[in-house]
Structure formats: structure tokens, C-alpha cells
């Protein structure tokens, strides 16, 4: 019984640890990797061209594309 409860405690702990690591990875990618990638010339050109043209490349449907009203 006690062994079962300790196993449950361990699995809960590893779950929280996994969540923490997952969020840490997300923070690292979004706050460090992606801004770094955004400074890379090829990517910067692509982003700037779309910003200048007022294009939202993430649009799912034509109603989300700013200049297509």
C-alpha cells in the first residue's frame, strides 16, 4: 500500500517536472531561439517583406489577410 502511494507520488513529481521542463523549453525557443533566428538575414528579409506588404502569412482564411477585403 505504502509502496503504491510512493509510486504515485513519484509519478506525480515526474509529471510536474516534465511540465516545468516543457514550459522552460517553450520559453527558451520563443525568447532566445526564435528572436535569434529573426536576426538571420534570410529570415529577416522574408519577415520585413511581408510586414512592408501588410501580409499575414499565418492567415487561415482570406478574411484574415489584411489587404484582401
Amino acid at each position: 500500500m505504502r509502496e503504491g502511494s510512493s509510486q504515485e507520488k513519484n509519478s506525480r513529481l515526474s509529471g510536474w517536472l516534465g511540465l516545468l521542463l516543457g514550459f522552460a523549453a517553450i520559453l527558451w525557443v520563443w525568447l532566445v531561439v526564435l528572436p535569434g533566428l529573426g536576426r538571420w538575414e534570410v529570415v529577416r528579409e522574408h519577415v520585413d517583406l511581408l510586414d512592408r506588404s501588410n501580409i499575414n502569412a499565418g492567415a487561415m482564411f482570406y478574411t484574415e489577410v489584411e489587404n484582401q477585403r
Partner: protein
Amino acid sequence: MSDALRRWIPHEDWLIVLVGSLVLILCTQFVRIKPAEDGIGKGTVENLGKGKVAKLEQWGSDPTDAIYSKPGAKKSYNQGWPLAWTFCVVSLIVAPLAKYKGIRPSEYFVGIAVLFLLGTLAFMMAGQEVIKQYNFEYVLWALLLGLLISNTVGVPKFFRPMLMGDSLIKLGLVLFGAEVLFGKLVALGVPGIFTSWVVTPIVLITTYWFGQRVLKMDSPSLNMVISADMSVCGVSAAIATGAACRAKREEVSYAIGVSLLFTAIMMVVQPRIVLWTGMDKIVGAAWMGGTIDSTGAVAAAGAALGKEAETVASAVKMIQNVLIGVIAFGVATYWSMRFGDSSGSERIGVGEIWKRFPKFVLGFIGASLAFSFLPGVLGVPTGVVDTVTKDVTGPMRMWLFCLAFVAFGLETNFRELGKYLKEGKPLLLYLIGQAWSMLLSLAMATLMFGYLYADRIQEMMKK
């Protein structure tokens, strides 16, 4: 009260149609048409609902830029109040569905707040400039956040009833119907219709047939969702057809993941192929419009070839976007005829088809027809539909889809999703289907935009 609601409305889909229709009608009430001061001109359309539904902004290295602008920024904005307002509206319109499911108010308000918080985070992640401009849409990040939580600490028991992703998707789709406007079909005339409305159904049907007969895929619904998202318009088509053929959430998630990955590649590679081969840019633009899955990515790929190419590519895609209503209706009807609860293929009558038919699709089609044709009948300026769909119902639909994908992630096990990743057939289907789509679209674009209507398109561009 949920029992009383069930007696009045025997199927949840009807409640979704009712709520969606009421929301659409209410959203039109915020629009004011001001006549021209001189009494001769067209006048202006003012939408009091504009800016009320939160649309998080693009950011580079500071995520708070998604919510509010800093002093000296190019554009001044603060999404604080719109976020609070959106939360209230979303909570209000989803509440009848929760009541129908018998969810207690206390569980509902905690649940919807958690979903909204995760949804906001997903929108922030999707707003990072590199992520956004390479077309990795918010649904992917909503799914990822849900998956991360459910596969580590799990979902608490009291929260489980709130995992109502299917209902949120259906409600979002009824609102989405208002954006599927048949008037957009004539944007490029005959060549646009041929490139989008002839090639697309051929690719969809042949790819589905290929998956079933040649690849012998186990799941017809996964086969259909991949065929639709690859041939019509990516994520939105996957969501609409997935709901129409009752695909599993893992199947829709898989199809969306593959589509977004290849869209990011194609939006960069295809314009370069056009340039390297010396293809006519207008033909190349029509080709990209017909083949790149996602709408925003088509505009981006077109922009890489210049303004005219961007216009043509976007218009071809927009015409293809309209097809989504017809496809969803066709798939729902076919599925109702072919696959019942027992997935048998016995001959069935009209009554049985009606019983099996997903009723929310009628709300989706009804909204599309009403917003396409009613303004013309009632003499309402076209600007009214544009502002209602782009500034109010569209962003609200995005929130519903986002929350739905958070819920999908929260109820999905990595192992279930991993099954599809290990199996090679779905990916093979996507690749072969995409190659087939590129070939047919190129042939049609060359014929229509390069030969038969080349002069007319050139004239149209000069205007």
C-alpha cells in the same frame, strides 16, 4: 435545466446552429451605415464592434508587445480590454453548450478561464514574427500546450467535462460560414474558377480514392481530412471536413501538423521554382494559389514575385476558399450515406441519411448563403458583410477554434498521436496528393492564365 433544454432541443447540433445564428445576427447590429454628406456618394460603414474582439499583435523579442505597444512604437494599441471583453463574450456564447452537457456553473467558469488563458498563450506564441510569417498557425500551439499539460500532470477530474473541443469547433464553423462568400467567386472570372473549382475537386476525389484503393488506408476519415486540407485550403478545410466526417481529433491534428510543415516549405520554395524556371509570374502565381495549402502563405509566396503576382495568387486562393462550404456539405452527405454508426456500407433511405447528417453543417451552409446573398436582396452595402466578418465574427471564430484545439490537446495522449506519426501511409498520401495537385494546377494555370485568358488578366492587372 439541462434536461429541459434537451427536451426542447433533442440534438446538440441544433443548439449550436441556434447559438451561432443568434451571434451572427447580433454582430450585424453593431454596424451603422452613414449616408454620404452630399447625399450622392456611397456613404460610410461604421462598425461599433470593431476592435472589441482581441487580436494579439505580432512581436519579435518581447512577448508583451503582443498585448500592448510601448512608447515610440509604430502603432499604438492595447489589447487588455479587448481580451477581457472577448473572454466575457466567449464565456457567454459557450455557456448554453456547457449547460446542455450538464456542466455545473462553478466548473464551467474555472474551465473556460483556464482554456482562455491557454488560448491567449497560444495566440502569443503564434504572434512571434518568425512563427507567424512562416505560417505556423495558432491551432498548432494551442494543441501543443494542451498536449504538454495532459501528458505530464494530466487533467484534473473536475476539468474533464470542459474538454468540449468538438462543440467549440462546430460553433466556430457556424460563425465561419459567414466568411464563405459566393460573391468572391467572380474575382478573377473564368480562369480563376477553372483553376480553383475544377482542379480542386478532381484532386480531392482522386486523392481520397487513391488512399482507399491503392494505399488501403485504415481510416477513411483520416484519408478524407488529409485529401481536403491538401487540396482545398489547409487548416480551415481540415477543421471543416474533419467535423463533417466525424474524424478523430488525433486525425485532424495530424493532418494540420503535416499541412503546416509543408506549407512553410512550399511558400519559400515555390516562388523560387517560378523564378528559376523563368515561368510567367502570373501563371506561377495562379499555380501557387491553387497548390499552397494555407491562405496567408499563398499571399506571402505571391508577394515574393511582386504585387501583381500577390494579387493573382491571393485571388485564386480566395476563390478556392469559397469551395470549403460545398466540400463540407458534400463530405457530410457522402459520410451520412456511406458510414453510419456501424461504419457499414449498406443501402439506406433518405430518413436514415438525415438522421446521420451532422446538422451543424446546415448552420455553416445557411450562414454562408445568408451572408452571400441577403445583403444583395436587402440592398445592404457590401462593406457591412466585410466589416462584420473581418472585425467581429472572424476573430471570434478564431478564439473558438483556438480553445477547441487547447481542449483537443488536453484530451489527447502522445501515444495515440504517435501511431499516425509512425505510420507512413498518411504522409505518403499527402506527398503524392500534393505532387498530383501541383501537376494539375500547373497545367490549368498555364492553359487559363498563360494562353486562353492571358490578355484579359493583363488588362485586369493594369486597372
